[in-house]
């Protein structure tokens, strides 16, 4: 408890007294290793350290308090459902044969239980974290009707190629959408790939970190091969709102969720993961899978994978498609290989069955 300063003055006293009282100089050098950063006691020395080899509890890995769970029903969303919830919108066909796709997206302030017993004053899109997964095909005409039901000004900013006035940032085009207002963002679906959308009102990091983001998938003109598709959005919660890192890390909303409820997949079936990183306050995030490798398509804008790997790293706003098959049955972990994030909630399991 009281360490270096106390010891320094104890030793200081030693020397003072020994010189003052002519008791002979004590070998100062020998005291060197006894500073606070010295290694622990030599083996066999302290009689009061029984069992130092026993690890005791906690070796099975990180966990929330056992037996405690998040109330998904009260939250209004469940990460397992978010996984395969693709929102194709309301479609119609124009006389020229072009598909028009429309969505209703609303912003609201929600009190969400982000970990058992922990409430978070979130700003959400369609009352969930992450927001909806909007999916279309390249060339579609997209209309996103945005209504701001929050108490704060927001926008929707889509990654992709579009005119400046549809960019959803303050001061350009319609700009900020104030509480109670609405606006329709209209643009073409291009380029194909895996994108995201988020609020772009300042302070930007906070508006995003509070939960205002979603996945935006533009399918290529020729569909990708049939697969068991799923969305994984990597993100975090800065519950102290100090802008310095996060206290909780998650994929699809709730930390550790897929540890309790593994992602169920079939053996040898093609699995396609749309992996998005919207983590704020930390520069990189990562994804690692156990017992397997995957083809990786950065941003999904090319149909050829660039890498065959089991770990990829994404910076803020980066995303990519992972394709793999599980040849073996059983449970396989996936997690951030920034292991600190993993132990703060960003980990889960695949369960492979016949």
């Amino acid at each position: 408890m009281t360490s270096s300063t106390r010891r320094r003055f104890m030793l200081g006293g030693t020397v003072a007294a020994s010189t003052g009282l002519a008791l002979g100089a004590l070998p100062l050098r020998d005291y060197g290793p006894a500073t606070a950063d010295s290694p622990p006691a030599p083996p066999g020395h302290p009689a009061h350290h029984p069992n130092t080899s026993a690890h005791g509890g906690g070796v099975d890995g990180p966990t929330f308090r056992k037996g405690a769970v998040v109330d998904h029903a009260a939250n209004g969303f469940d990460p397992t459902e978010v996984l395969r919830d693709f929102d194709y919108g309301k479609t119609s066909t124009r006389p020229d044969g072009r598909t028009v796709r429309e969505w209703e997206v609303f912003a609201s302030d929600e009190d969400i239980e982000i970990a058992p017993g922990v409430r978070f004053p979130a700003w959400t899109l369609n009352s969930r974290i992450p927001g909806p997964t909007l999916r279309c095909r390249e060339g579609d005409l997209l209309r996103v009707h945005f209504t701001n039901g929050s108490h704060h000004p927001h926008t929707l900013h889509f990654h992709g190629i579009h005119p400046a006035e549809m960019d959803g940032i303050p001061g350009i085009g319609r700009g900020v959408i104030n509480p109670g207002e609405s606006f329709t963002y209209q643009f073409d679906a291009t380029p194909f790939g895996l994108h995201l959308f988020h609020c772009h009102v300042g302070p930007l990091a906070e508006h995003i970190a509070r939960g205002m983001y979603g996945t935006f998938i533009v399918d290529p003109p020729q569909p990708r091969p049939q697969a068991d598709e799923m969305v994984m959005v990597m993100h975090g919660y800065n519950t102290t709102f100090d802008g310095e890192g996060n206290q909780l890390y998650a994929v699809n909303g709730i930390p550790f969720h897929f540890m309790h409820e593994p992602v169920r997949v079939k053996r040898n079936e093609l699995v396609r993961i749309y992996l998005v990183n919207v983590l704020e306050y930390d520069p990189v995030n990562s994804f690692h899978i156990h017992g397997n490798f995957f083809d990786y398509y950065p941003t999904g804008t090319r149909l050829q994978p660039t890498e065959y790997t089991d770990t990829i790293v994404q910076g803020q706003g980066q995303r990519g498609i992972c394709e793999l098959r599980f040849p073996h049955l059983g449970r396989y972990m996936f997690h951030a290989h920034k292991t600190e994030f993993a132990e703060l909630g960003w980990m889960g399991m695949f369960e492979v069955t016949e």
Partner: protein
Amino acid sequence: MTATVHTRRPWILGLISVALLAIALAGLALLGGRTLPERTGPPVEEIAVEHTTLTPGAIELTVRNTGPDAVSIAQIFVNDAYIDFTGPTEPIGRLASARLRLDYPWQDGQPYKISMLTSTGLVIEHDVPLAVTTPEPNASFFGLMALLGIYVGIVPVVLGMLFLPVMRVAGSRAVRVLLAVTVGLLAFLAWEGASEGFELAGRSGGAFGGTALVVLGAGLAFLGLTAVDQWLRNRRRAAEAAGGAGVRLALMIAIGIGLHNLGEGLATGSAYAVGELALGTFLVIGFTIQNTTEGLAVVSPLTERRPPLLTLLGLGLIAGAPAIVGAVLGATVNNAELSALLLGVGVGAIIQVIVQIAPSLRESAGRSFDAMALGGVAVGLLVMYSTGLLVAA
């Protein structure tokens, strides 16, 4: 008429004043209370960790809610990893305490940061600077602590007192210089104790006042000791001629040093509790040798007298024994706030001792301090400072 009231019945006036005050306060509470605004903003969550116990694979915390609002500890992470724990699922009420048992494979000799995530997302941190298995507080443990207290407290003080005959021979001038050096040493110790108390209080989260505790402890100790001094002074005034003054000063120095040794014992005990003393008994030896100067300080007012042996022994006990109490408290209580308060008490006691010794640094006839005395103080300061540097290097 009024004069009668003032001189004969001052308590009636006092009662009337108190009654008026009570009526006014009650009225305010009844009527004004409703007009005052409710406290707004997020709840104020404060948790103080009062005790930490480490057993293989587990860390047990005794926490107390020292804030105005109830606190729910929802989850806990240790060194950035969430862990399983047992403890209350209900909110901890104001000033209520709770025990949390953390399931964590801590390693011997490592530091740990325990972060308690409350229901509102606030993080309350607690540091374990060096993890070692908490000693079992059984009879042999208390015996060991008492022995440590005797080593660092009583033995050196009594050893220092053995120099009394030497000092008698050396003469008043040498004694004065020695006292001056002691003042310098003590001044540095006061500074060290204060800064350490502040550091400790800062680490505790400030639930019970934080650094103010050090100041409070120092102030109370200083005032209390000064009051004792005045009382002794009055009591002994009649016996002044019989040589009581020297013993009185010696007693005051002994009490002051005793309170300082309480803080020192606290440091020893808590160092033991976090396993640092396991690094070498020379730390105890360091304390021991340093404390011999305290024995010198105690007997220095007695060079011109021959007090009974029992008086000398009593002075030694008063100066040294608190180290035993400190060692036991430090090793078992392990409470940053209490330790900060007691370190403050030690600081106040040292300052009081300095104030006590200061007059004797003057030449017996003169009113000012001579160069020898001032030089002695400077030497004391410098010795403490420079040896501190040497050791840190």
